[in-house]
């Protein structure tokens, strides 16, 4: 049961609207399922899902209290839903992308029109009268100046911010080159001279904006993790008054010591202990393990875990803001800020680049004045140096490489959230794996070799009547046996009559043993109870994948919330010597930070909510699509198709992308070594500048496209999406 969505509904007369954050929708199939499923409900006017922002807009005729019904319908279809809380940062992102697109379009308009005029001037040469040329220049100025002022703003603002913080970034030389090119051109036009750089300035802006737009597209999906975590937090709780009656209060008002009723299927609102009643808890949030935990009065409970058994009363020990879920949310947010502090390769290059280029320009100016050039020639040549060395190709090259790399990974079912995630991934020298659901399939399998064939059939038939993960491990195809009088005793086991035989399946005590023993036990009629070992199966590709990673000089370790013997078994099997068992989310995080503190870039691969803080803090992180939504949103990379075999390929692509970027830097240096002497000695005309700039941009883009051939991928191809009925 979910309460409280009604308060997020906006009403306008008869029509009610609601915005929801929907988790789990990732493809066209999901989109169709959600929209059609909701539109089929009575009185629903509109249901529109935005796949890029994971938001669903609903509009219906009637009362706001239908809101909870829509959320349950979504959950029925396999998606999670929470209210969309208006968030400034998201709106800012959207506005920012729009501004960039518009600036790019305006720059393209200006560039094309100014280029028409410039080409006329260049091809007209000496046969064009100076009056006509002057008219062309004035027209160019009229188009270029307002457009440069408008479209160049992203660079000017960023450069100004950097300068005020007493540092430089790539936008400083860019802004300077744009500003000086425009200034010089106006001066030349005013005096009727021939050298104007309006086209060069606009081309610079346009090419750089293409790079910025590509980059903004790649980043569009970050920052959603914390929002979706907030959707998991319980909003209302039922508190027991001293006289035993119940009152509904907002979760934020829960005080330590309050007694709260938690119904079956509800999330625990705050950390606390069981006060009354016995139940089973789905603690996948904390441990990442699929088994339900039995709890009795006095046992501790964590916020965000789910009561899967009988209703019970709990006593709050912490307030909502100090509870586990709030802690994890804070850790994820903090981690994302750490990652945001990563200095991109391009910016690092700019820090070395700027001082050199600017001193060169200054030297050119002084040099020309010293050898007796006119101030105009000296100025012209100094500015030509600045224009020709403007890191235009680099601004385009880095995002172009990243877009191609991300596209390559996408076709193999690997989704990358941001361009700098690829840069970070390329540096990785250590991979930390979670166990359950990552190295293992996260599904129970039963070892049935000890059971006689005829008994196994009966046991499997009975098992198919339970939804318990352990029983599901035993289920087989339809055995055709008649079943009668099935009874499931909560937390104990299952019994029934299978073609006349009494079959029991469950805990050791349940089948009549006088002691507790691990695993599942079965008993047919009066025979001796049979032990059925249950384990979580290792992924078939795990061994080969890990070996492939070792060959790439990457250290491997396991960090699991599971018990030591299980972890040790998996580690031995995979020949991993470095493993940790019983790690809490905070301990996982500590381990990652410790590695990073010793300057080792770490890739964390996980799937559970308990991995989320570690995922958010690691240098780079990958989550399995089959894992929890939170792990996916806290990660840079999502692996689709229930397999980790794409990891070596992913590392190859990331490293190749870094090589391409480095090559492009090298190319830029080579280009400058050729072009700078030309500019210094006054041989660069506006025509040469335009040709050099577009040629170098083309070259780095082509180099980026070479990424398409990297790394033969020998695993099966993941189509990455299916159109119908997929809800992953």
């Amino acid at each position: 049961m979910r309460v409280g969505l009604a308060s997020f509904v906006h009403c306008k007369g008869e029509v009610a609207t609601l915005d929801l954050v929907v988790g789990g929708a990732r493809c066209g199939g999901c989109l169709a399922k959600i929209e059609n499923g909701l539109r089929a409900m009575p009185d629903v006017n509109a249901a529109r899902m935005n796949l890029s922002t994971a938001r669903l807009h609903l509009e219906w005729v009637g009362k706001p209290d239908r809101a909870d019904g829509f959320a349950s319908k979504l959950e029925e279809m396999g998606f999670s839903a929470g209210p969309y809380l208006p968030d400034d940062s998201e709106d800012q992102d959207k506005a920012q992308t729009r501004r960039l697109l518009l600036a790019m379009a305006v720059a393209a308009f200006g560039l094309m029109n100014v280029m028409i005029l410039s080409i006329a001037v260049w091809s007209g040469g000496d046969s064009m009268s100076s009056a006509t040329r002057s008219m062309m220049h004035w027209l160019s100025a009229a188009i270029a100046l307002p457009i440069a002022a408008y479209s160049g703003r992203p660079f000017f603002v960023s450069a100004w911010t950097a300068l005020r913080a007493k540092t430089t970034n790539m936008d400083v030389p860019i802004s300077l080159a744009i500003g000086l090119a425009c200034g010089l051109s106006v001066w030349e036009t005013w005096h009727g001279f021939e050298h104007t750089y309006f086209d060069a300035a606009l081309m610079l802006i346009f090419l750089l904006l293409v790079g910025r737009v590509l980059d903004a597209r790649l980043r569009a999906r970050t920052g959603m993790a914390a929002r979706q975590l907030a959707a998991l937090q319980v909003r209302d709780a039922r508190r027991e008054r001293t006289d035993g009656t119940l009152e509904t209060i907002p979760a934020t008002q829960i005080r330590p010591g309050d007694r709260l009723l938690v119904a079956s299927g509800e999330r625990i609102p705050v950390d606390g202990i069981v006060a009354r009643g016995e139940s089973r808890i789905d603690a996948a949030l904390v441990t990442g393990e699929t088994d339900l935990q039995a709890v009795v009065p006095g046992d501790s409970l964590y916020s965000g875990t789910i009561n899967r058994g009988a209703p019970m009363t709990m006593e709050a020990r912490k307030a909502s803001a100090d509870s586990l879920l709030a802690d994890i949310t804070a850790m994820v947010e903090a981690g994302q800020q750490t990652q945001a502090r990563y200095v991109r390769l391009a910016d690092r290059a700019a820090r070395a680049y700027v001082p050199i280029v600017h001193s060169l320009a200054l030297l050119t100016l002084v040099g020309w004045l010293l050898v007796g050039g006119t101030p105009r020639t000296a100025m012209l040549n100094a500015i030509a140096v600045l224009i020709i060395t403007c890191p235009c190709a680099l601004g385009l090259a880095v995002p172009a490489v990243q877009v191609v790399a991300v596209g390559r990974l996408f076709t193999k079912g690997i989704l990358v959230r941001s361009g700098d995630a690829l840069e970070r991934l390329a540096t990785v020298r250590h991979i930390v794996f979670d166990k359950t659901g990552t190295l293992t399939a996260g599904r129970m399998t039963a070892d049935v070799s000890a059971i006689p064939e005829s008994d196994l059939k009966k046991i499997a038939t009975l098992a198919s009547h339970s939804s318990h993960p352990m029983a599901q491990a035993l289920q087989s195809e339809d055995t055709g046996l008649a079943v009668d009088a099935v009874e499931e005793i909560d937390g104990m086991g299952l019994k029934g009559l299978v073609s006349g035989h009494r079959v029991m399946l469950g805990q050791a005590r349940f089948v009549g043993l006088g002691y507790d023993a691990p695993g599942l036990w079965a008993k047919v009629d009066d025979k001796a109870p049979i032990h059925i070992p249950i384990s979580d199966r290792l992924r078939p590709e795990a061994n080969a994948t890990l070996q492939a990673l070792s060959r790439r000089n990457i250290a491997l370790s396991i960090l699991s919330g599971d018990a030591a013997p299980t972890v040790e078994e998996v580690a031995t099997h995979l020949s991993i010597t470095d493993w940790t068992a019983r790690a809490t989310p905070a301990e996982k995080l500590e381990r990652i930070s410790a590695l990073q503190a010793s300057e080792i870039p770490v890739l964390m691969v996980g799937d559970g909510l308990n991995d989320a803080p570690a995922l958010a803090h690691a240098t780079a992180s990958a989550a399995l699509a089959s894992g929890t939504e939170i792990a996916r949103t806290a990660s840079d990379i999502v692996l689709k198709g229930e397999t980790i075999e794409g990891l070596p390929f992913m590392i190859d692509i990331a490293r190749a992308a870094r090589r391409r970027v480095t090559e492009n830097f090298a190319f830029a240096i080579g280009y400058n070594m050729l072009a700078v002497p030309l500019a210094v000695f006054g041989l660069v005309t506006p025509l040469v500048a335009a040709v050099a700039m577009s040629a170098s941009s083309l070259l780095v883009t082509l180099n980026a496209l070479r990424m398409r051939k990297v790394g033969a991928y020998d695993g099966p191809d993941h189509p990455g999406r299916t159109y119908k009925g997929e809800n992953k």
Partner: protein
Amino acid sequence: MSSLLWLIPIALCLGTGALGLFVWALRSGQFDDPDGDSQRMLNDDDFPLT
């Protein structure tokens, strides 16, 4: 040379028109959900044609 007097305005008008169309597309939300729109067109409406 007099041809320039009407060729340049025509070029500017065409360019402005294209820019105007782009601005309209941007304002009306055509670029808000690139992921969803690329998928949505592949979904059948399942409405009978007759």
